[in-house]
């Protein structure tokens, strides 16, 4: 009855063909292929489980977590972050808000939650799984972070300042790598992040699955890792510094359509 025809499309890190490399962006084709074969949905399923799982001293789930659109409202919530939250008086991105919800709803301590903010291929972190689940529900929404509240304006201004602030052992700033067009590290293109045209397709695909390490990565991780590559002190997870930079980059991407979670090299 059924003819057997089995074609394996495993998520292998494919090397680029020479023909593809001649095009302007050799990654477009690669990105398309890897997106089709990426196991993102599996992580979203775990994220959903964690979202609904009763945890912590208060034995509560995160289902009542307010990500800015009201308790438990997830549709389009991620696309409207970072934004100012009245209850904490801070501009928060998704991950810092999740930490806040875990503390307030589940009664967990910040130390316990942030013991392992970034996972690896064998064991992604709780925050990474949750980010995937929450972000998926903004797929197709316009990126619209908060820009009106004085605190939001402050965060943007601080982010802008930090973006060109030289620091660390090597006296690097974000602009050292991301301040002009056409730069790259080995085969990776370095986008000019203060250019809305170049930053918006990126912001539209975070958080993401990173093919080369089979792991989940988030914007908090991206900032942390950039700081590490600049040889600065490690930034604090969800701190004003990191959140302001995320705010700056997201506001630059305002108006683009969120199409994540995405795939990175």
């Amino acid at each position, binding site marked *: *009855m059924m003819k057997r025809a*089995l074609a*394996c499309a*495993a*998520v292998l890190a494919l090397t680029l063909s020479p023909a593809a490399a001649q095009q302007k962006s050799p990654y477009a084709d690669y990105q398309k292929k890897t997106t089709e*074969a990426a*196991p993102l949905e*599996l992580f979203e399923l775990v994220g959903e489980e964690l979202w609904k799982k009763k945890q912590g001293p208060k034995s509560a789930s995160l289902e009542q977590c307010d990500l800015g659109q009201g308790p438990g409202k997830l549709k389009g919530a991620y696309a409207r972050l970072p934004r100012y939250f009245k209850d904490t008086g801070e501009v928060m991105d998704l991950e810092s808000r999740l930490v806040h919800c875990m503390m307030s709803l589940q009664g967990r301590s910040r130390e316990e939650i942030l013991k392992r903010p970034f996972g690896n291929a064998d064991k992604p972190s709780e925050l990474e799984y949750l980010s995937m689940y929450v972000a998926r529900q903004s797929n197709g929404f316009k990126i619209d972070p908060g820009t009106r509240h004085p605190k939001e304006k402050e965060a943007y201004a601080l982010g802008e300042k930090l973006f060109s602030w030289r620091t660390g052992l090597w006296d690097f700033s974000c602009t050292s790598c991301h301040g002009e067009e056409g730069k790259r590290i080995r085969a990776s293109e370095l986008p000019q992040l203060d250019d809305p045209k170049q930053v918006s397709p990126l912001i539209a695909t975070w958080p993401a699955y990173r093919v080369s390490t089979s792991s989940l990565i988030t914007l908090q991780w991206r900032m942390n890792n950039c700081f590490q590559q600049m040889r600065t002190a490690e930034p604090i997870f969800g701190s004003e510094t990191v959140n302001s930079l995320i705010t700056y980059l997201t506001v630059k991407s305002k108006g683009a359509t969120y199409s994540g979670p995405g795939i990175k090299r």
Partner: protein
Amino acid sequence: MAGPMKMRATLAGGYTDVRVLMTHPMATEQQTKGQPHFIQNLTVKVNGKTVIEGEISQAISRNPVFSFRLKGGAKGDKIEVSWLDNKGDTNKTETAVA
């Protein structure tokens, strides 16, 4: 316990396209210094009848994605995909053709 699986089966133009994702470390002999952990057998059933029995190796990447095409099929047909790894762990998922 094995992580989640996800499957989609869609009928189009006389063929049923099936795409299945599975959570598995697929750790090789070399990575683990002699303690490999990988899916060995893959079984696809349609309405309870086995149509594919596959053997796969350590060469398949972590969290594999398989897609394949079955000739024919009808809406509502039950497709079941199960795997068995070299440590005896197993998992399966079932979906109806849409």
